[in-house]
């Protein structure tokens, strides 16, 4: 099982990039599955299921931060994807506060940023960018050449070894290199660990417990099927 985690600010074009990626994986006879983690509303799972007829799932994080939710449910979702006999699990998250990063060791981390969000964005977002393997820049046709160059320069300033892909995903431009890296990526290994150190805080993840799975955490937890429960004193 290969795990690909797509992160990025809301409306940056993650789903559009993912659709193009899934289309190409299917054309190569590969078997992708898809998980969407969002806070309150998402219908991308239904869109993708009806468009591509692949196993999809959505989880509302509700009271939890979506990246926190990702950490406590991801082991179960991987099991689900394996049951579906998928070869690839594509996770789309709506990481919000930009202090965490959702990427897991041995997974491929893809951050999607829109060129229209201003030249300073790469300096503002931290581990969601610096711990990613690939940075996809979308909506490149809308900004000046100069700003494209500055945007890219600042991404490399923040994340020196990241692969940058400029994409006009609506027209499927720039998607092939992403698919190539997805196919070349490693299989995940159990137990899974987060790539980065979470920030200082009061929840188990915020204080540095990187093990994936609700059984490794305490406080307010949940399962894949959305039952919140509490473990602890």
């Amino acid at each position, binding site marked *: 099982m290969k795990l690909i985690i797509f992160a990025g600010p809301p409306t940056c074009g993650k789903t559009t990039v993912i659709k193009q990626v899934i289309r190409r994986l299917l054309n190569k006879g590969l078997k992708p599955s898809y998980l969407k983690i969002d806070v309150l509303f998402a219908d991308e799972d239904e869109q993708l299921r009806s468009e591509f007829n692949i196993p999809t799932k959505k989880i509302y994080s509700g009271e939890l931060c979506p990246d926190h939710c990702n950490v406590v449910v991801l082991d179960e979702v991987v099991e689900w994807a394996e049951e579906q006999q998928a070869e690839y699990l594509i996770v789309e998250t709506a990481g919000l506060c930009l202090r965490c990063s959702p990427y897991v060791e041995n997974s491929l981390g893809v951050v999607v940023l829109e060129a229209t969000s*201003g*030249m300073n964005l790469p300096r503002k977002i931290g581990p969601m960018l610096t711990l990613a*393997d690939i940075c996809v820049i979308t909506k490149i*046709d809308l900004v*000046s050449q100069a700003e494209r160059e500055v945007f890219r320069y600042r991404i490399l300033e923040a994340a020196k070894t990241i692969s940058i892909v*400029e994409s006009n995903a609506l*027209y499927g431009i720039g998607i092939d290199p992403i698919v190539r890296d997805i196919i070349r990526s490693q299989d995940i290994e159990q137990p899974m660990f987060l790539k980065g150190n979470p920030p200082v805080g009061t929840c188990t993840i915020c204080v540095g417990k990187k093990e994936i799975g609700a059984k490794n955490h305490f406080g307010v937890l949940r399962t894949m099927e959305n039952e919140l429960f509490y473990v602890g004193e």
Partner: protein
Amino acid sequence: MYTNSIDITCNFAENYFMDINKITVIGGIGKDKSPEKVEKFELCMGNIISIVGPTGCGKTTLINDIELFANKNTPSMRTILINDEPVAEDFTFDPSKHPIALISQHTNFLSDLPVGEFLKIHSTIRGSENVSAMIDETLDFANQLTGEAIIKETAMTQLSGGQTRSLLIADAVIIGNSPIILLDEIENAGIHRTKALELLKNYQKIFVFVTHDPRIALLSDFRIIMKNGAMQKMITTSDEEKMAAIGLKQLDDIMLDFRKMIRAGEEITNDIFDKHINYLVTNYQYSLKK
């Protein structure tokens, strides 16, 4: 697994595009999947060419293919060669090394920095040795294209449509120094077209215009006619057409004159109108004799 991949790519790109002499566009298929009538065309340094055709005929798709160095991997199945060689499919560019600058109808500045600050950031990341001279040259170029001069202290977002387009072109030519510049319908932006073409001819670059403007088309070395997603025809500008371009220039100048008068609050009387038309006819016949 990604370590160092950036460095390698950058160096490769730098060497790869040090000397572009020629771009070749090899035709693919149109919207109806039949092969394009123009099998191929070549662009050499110093060329100015136009792509023409009705809206929706695939003009923008053609310049997108050029910008991407398509290698039978876009819906049109076209192939772009640089110095007779294809560009590797998975090749991705650092935009500061990318030999092509595309200025489209949608391209805009988003930054609200003052113009001078913005140009400084761009020329600094380009490793320019004399940043302030670079900024002055860029502003000077832009100000020859636009009616209202751009001031260094103006915020980028306050520039008018014409000022923005002028600065985009000037930045791509001077600071970006891109060898190939694609301009998608710049005539809609209210810039000085005659001046633009005159200025651009001084730079040894390839300029590709997507245009509905007959003057730009007739001042080009040749034009590609598009229809239904396919390149239908290639016309080299004949001497006859070059003469027509002169006549069109005079027509255009008269239009500009009227524009100036209307902007200045003058009224267009019969007298003024006739005077302009008579001037046009005499002048055109004179230039024909010459």
